């Protein structure tokens, strides 16, 4: 066996140009598929990170109530005492069940309003944050102007820079906000621009931040009430398990009602993207108290993940097509090799080498060429990804959502590399199999005469 390996390895180097051409063709396929796999892996990771930052957490709990006139109102009135569990409410008890998994717990309210300054107006997601009770929030923002507001600044407004530019508003200016209450009534808030910040992702999804208690007043939820509870987990992979525990503990909508039309925006953006305040249809059963909806970062990522899976499949198909074309070359090459080495085969057979061993030498040689091409392709792919990841792209575009600090990142799943190598090896062996079998079947007497 070792001898066959040695012969096969030596044969690989006998026609260096031919081997280099074959390995080069294979390496091109490996380069393409590896870079594509790395790209989808990196983008997927960046989107997940951006969404986690944008929405704020890994598990999101929202609550809905019905008014007497059957309006569906988005509000959570249960207390989650100071962010800790055990407050005695259904929500606090449910959160207590998964307390060990929670790294951070935030209360938020969120609405789509219109910010107005003079004759200019922009539609903007406005997010209420308890930045006194959530001391890590303000320092996490990347300021581009102004200063972080103090705890006493009740009507302070922190605005994404692009929104401030469109409004042509400066720090210290008074900005009006036209918002709807949770039942859809019109209301107006007066804010003072305290600071501008960098976009947190796609411009359209970037939030302006205000104090939770002031926003609660504007959207007409009570003091201490909020709309969303965001959980950051120690291990984001546990998001689905945590959601299952919460769903089991909290009153939720029946399964069939949970499948609703996608609002198109981050979870818990009531009426933000065309939904408006809705009313429970007359033929649907009303409910008492708060009904909760629990979603996770995986739910939000589901559509994107599907897209990346399709991209991976497409890249795999391209890889197989490229390899198949290359393998036609491999078949022809090995047919020529058979003719070139016919006397050699005859000699080996004459000195007692079995047919299987001859076949094995041919197959091993094909395997070596395949592995050489794979190795070369992986090195090229690593170099290409390294160069591409050094490029800094314009961060003032929606592309930013797919980037990490303006740069492309690549993450190649080891399973994809293993799968690609297995396919490559299988096709190489398959391509060499017929010439190898033919070589093995040549009688020694015929081979020694120099004809196959």
């Amino acid at each position, binding site marked *: 066996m070792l001898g066959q390996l040695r012969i096969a390895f030596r044969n690989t180097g006998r026609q260096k140009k031919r081997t280099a051409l074959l390995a080069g063709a294979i390496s091109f396929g490996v380069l393409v598929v590896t870079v594509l796999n790395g790209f989808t892996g990196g983008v997927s990771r960046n989107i997940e990170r951006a969404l986690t930052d944008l929405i704020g957490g890994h598990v999101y709990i929202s609550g809905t109530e019905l008014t007497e006139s059957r309006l569906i109102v988005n509000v959570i009135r249960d207390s989650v005492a100071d962010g800790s569990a055990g407050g005695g409410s259904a929500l606090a008890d449910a959160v207590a069940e998964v307390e060990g998994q929670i790294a951070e717990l935030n209360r938020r309210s969120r609405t789509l309003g219109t910010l107005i300054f003079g*004759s200019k107006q922009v539609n903007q997601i406005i997010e209420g944050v308890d930045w006194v009770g959530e001391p890590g929030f303000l320092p996490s923002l990347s300021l581009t102007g102004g200063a972080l507001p103090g705890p006493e600044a009740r009507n302070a407004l922190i605005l994404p820079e692009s929104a401030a530019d469109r409004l042509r508003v400066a720090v210290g200016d008074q900005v009006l906000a036209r918002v709807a209450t949770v039942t859809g009534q*019109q209301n107006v808030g007066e804010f003072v621009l305290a600071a501008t910040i960098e976009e947190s992702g796609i411009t359209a999804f970037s939030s302006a931040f205000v104090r939770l208690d002031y926003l609660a007043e504007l959207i007409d939820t009570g003091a201490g009430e909020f709309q969303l509870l965001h959980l950051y987990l120690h291990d984001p992979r546990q998001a689905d398990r945590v959601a299952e525990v919460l769903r089991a503990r909290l009153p939720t909508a029946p399964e069939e009602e949970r499948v609703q039309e996608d609002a198109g925006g981050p979870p818990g953006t009531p009426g933000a993207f065309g939904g408006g305040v*809705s009313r429970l249809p007359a033929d649907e059963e009303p409910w008492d108290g708060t009904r909760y909806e629990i979603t996770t970062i995986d739910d939000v990522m589901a559509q994107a993940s599907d897209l990346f899976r399709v991209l991976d499949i497409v890249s795999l198909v391209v890889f197989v097509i490229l390899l198949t074309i290359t393998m036609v070359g491999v078949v022809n090459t090995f047919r020529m090799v058979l003719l070139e080495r016919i006397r050699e085969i005859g000699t080996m057979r004459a000195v007692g080498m079995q047919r299987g061993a001859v076949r094995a030498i041919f197959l091993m040689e094909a395997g070596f060429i395949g592995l050489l091409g794979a190795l070369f392709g992986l090195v090229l792919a690593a170099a290409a990804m390294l160069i591409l990841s050094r490029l800094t792209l314009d961060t003032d575009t929606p592309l930013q959502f797919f980037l990490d600090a303006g740069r492309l990142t690549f993450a190649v799943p080891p399973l994809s590399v293993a799968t690609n190598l297995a396919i490559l090896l299988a096709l190489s062996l398959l391509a060499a199999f017929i010439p190898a079998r033919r070589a093995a079947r040549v009688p020694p007497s015929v081979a020694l005469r120099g004809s196959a």
Partner: protein
Amino acid sequence: MIRRCATALLMTAGLLSATASWAADIDVQALLAEIDRQRTFGDQDFTAVLTLVSEDPEEGVERTVAQQFRRDTDDAFLILIRDPAVQRGQGYLRQGDNLWFYDPDSRKFSHTSLKEAFQDTDARNSDFGDVKYAEDYTARTIEEGTLGKYAVYVLDLQATSDEVTYPFLKAWVTREGGLVLKTEDYSLTERLMRTSYYPRYARVGSAVVPTEMIFVDELVEGKKTRISMTDLSAAAIPDSVFTKAYVERANR
């Protein structure tokens, strides 16, 4: 037969000179009910062509033409956009408490609310249905005053539920005829958001409807919308008009 019964263009606050006297002997709820009765068609239907001219200092002037069908007994209306071409076929179908918006591009209906803005103008969807002042509001104060040459009651109204767009309203109502000439629409924090003028009315069938409405945005400088109604009719409308199928058919 359409008969114009009142005209007034009241665009400046200088025309207003309220005489600020309490009118405690007025039955406010009866007055509100009378306004509702006049503005409601009862068992008659209503058809009109709406022309909306929206002025925005940033966006410029936009003109929208729509056909309106209304049936107050069923709390139903349908507004189909005719012009501009890019919005042609869009529809607002009200069926009782539900209001649907139809997008001909996606061929889908989506739920919307009477409280939302109509086509990004200063009008609200609720401005196109019947009025229910007596049901939706209660008066905090009532004063006698004048608005231009008209003797009016000035009503300070507060919503009785969260079903209306504006929680607070100030209305100038003619003492004779009970026509609403002007309203100021206030937010929940009692900030003036919109001033509405109704300078022109017409009798259509058994109802009296404003044929010109001007909505001035009090938050965005220089933004306003003027709505004119023409081709008014109280003729019966087929039941099939107030259905989703009709809206879809109208787009074929």
